[in-house]
């Protein structure tokens, strides 16, 4: 479980996060949704400790991570799988080496076992056959999927994805959504996903928080999202024509 209390973050004069409190339970696909520039990435980076909050706390299973000394923080981070918005694959390594990178550090597996595990992860995200390529030779969507494979390489307890399916075609997009959903249920991970894709919200959003200009304006799940009376969220939802249809029919 990840618990966030009264989180504040600003860059100079720009107040990006404003008193955010929310709880993310284990085994659920938790989502942070919101328009571009609403502060999703900043929130995610603050949760995982890459940005220091100006106020408030983030606790993982009761453990306040911003208080941990560096060595313990490092040990703790081995249980967090992260997919960055721009994939952040290592340019100096091939696809398979990218996925094997965390295994090199934290397992004593033989090379064969590592390769087998990496191939398995790549297979699950549907990018087999590109093991020897470098990230620069892949399309954006493929990079994203390799990023997911790397994030799940060591079966993390927490999976954090920043826009896992932006830039993917609808078919692959749904595949990735289902993959993340499946893994979350299968291994009981605590998953947090940043997205503004209505499709994934409706497909896998167990617990959805709507972020608007740095404030958490609404919280609910994919079933209740159409019943909201939060004006900003309705505008956000209605930008998608399918969702607008559903919304209109519900409120007729």
């Amino acid at each position: 479980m990840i618990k966030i209390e009264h989180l504040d973050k600003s860059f100079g004069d720009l107040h990006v996060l404003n008193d955010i409190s929310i709880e993310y339970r284990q085994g659920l696909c938790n989502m942070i949704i919101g328009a571009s520039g609403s502060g999703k990435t900043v929130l995610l980076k603050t949760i995982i400790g890459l940005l220091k909050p100006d106020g408030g706390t983030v606790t993982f299973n009761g453990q306040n991570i911003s208080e941990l000394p560096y060595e313990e923080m490092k040990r703790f981070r081995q249980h967090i799988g992260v997919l960055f918005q721009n994939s952040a694959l290592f340019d100096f390594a091939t696809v398979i080496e990218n996925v094997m990178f965390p295994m090199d550090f934290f397992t004593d597996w033989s090379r064969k076992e590592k390769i087998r595990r990496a191939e398995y992860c790549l297979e699950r995200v549907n990018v087999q056959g590109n093991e020897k390529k470098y990230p620069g030779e892949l399309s954006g969507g493929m990079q994203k999927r390799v990023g997911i494979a790397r994030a799940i390489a060591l079966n993390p307890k927490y999976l954090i994805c920043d826009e896992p399916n932006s830039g993917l075609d609808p078919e692959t997009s749904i595949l990735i959504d289902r993959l993340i959903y499946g893994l979350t249920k299968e291994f009981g991970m605590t998953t947090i996903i940043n997205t503004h894709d209505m499709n994934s919200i409706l497909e896998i959003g167990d617990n959805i928080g709507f972020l608007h200009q740095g404030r958490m304006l609404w919280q609910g799940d994919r079933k209740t999202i159409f019943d909201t009376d939060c004006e900003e969220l309705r505008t956000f939802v209605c930008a998608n024509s399918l969702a607008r249809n559903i919304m209109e029919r519900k409120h007729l």
Partner: protein
Amino acid sequence: MLRKFFIETGRYFLFLGMVFKKPEKWRIFWKQFILEADKLIVSSVVLVSVISVFIGGVLVIQTASNMNNPFLDRMLVGYMVRESLILEFCSTMVALILAGKVGSNIASELGSMRITDQIDAIEMMGVNSASFLVLPKVLSVTLLSPLLVLLSFCLGLFGGWVVVAVTSIIPVAKYFTGLKYFFSEFYVFYSCVKMSIFCFMIASIAAYKGYYAHGGALGVGRSSTKSIVVSCILILMFDLIITQLMLY
């Protein structure tokens, strides 16, 4: 301005503290060490060689043309070329050139990793990114750069010989007598120590600038330029300090 200087210096030493941590796994460290040695030192061999040969040649001509007083033994040309090479050119001059080549390489590599979140990704896996990325670079450059001094010294003398042989500006035998005249091994040692210190500064400053790069691709360029400027100035300052300490 002064405040900024102190903040930067403090941050630089904190950064060094992060870099000089025990590597997570020695096997990975050695692998990186060899890769970096190849990328930073071995790949500089050609550049250093070419420069050294030419410098040696030029030094011979300049020295000879300044010493055509009949009372001075022509052998002294060889002696002076040797001394200038080992005392200054092979370490300081080569270090200034490496500041450009090695420094920009390190700063731009780390800078681009920073702005594309790759450093954050390493950090999020629970790996000390500073130690993993920077320690192999700093150590390989610091420990192996004296080899470049030796190479540069030999090739400089060779370049001088080529000029002497081709132009007969002084007799070849005199050149060799000069080279052997009052040879002090300590100067070679001094030069190697100097080079190690310079290269440590080059690598660590470039790494520091790159590691904390921000502001997109432009920021990466800026950090690489800054690292070269700063290390060049420091090289010349430390040249003075080390020389005073070791030779006087």
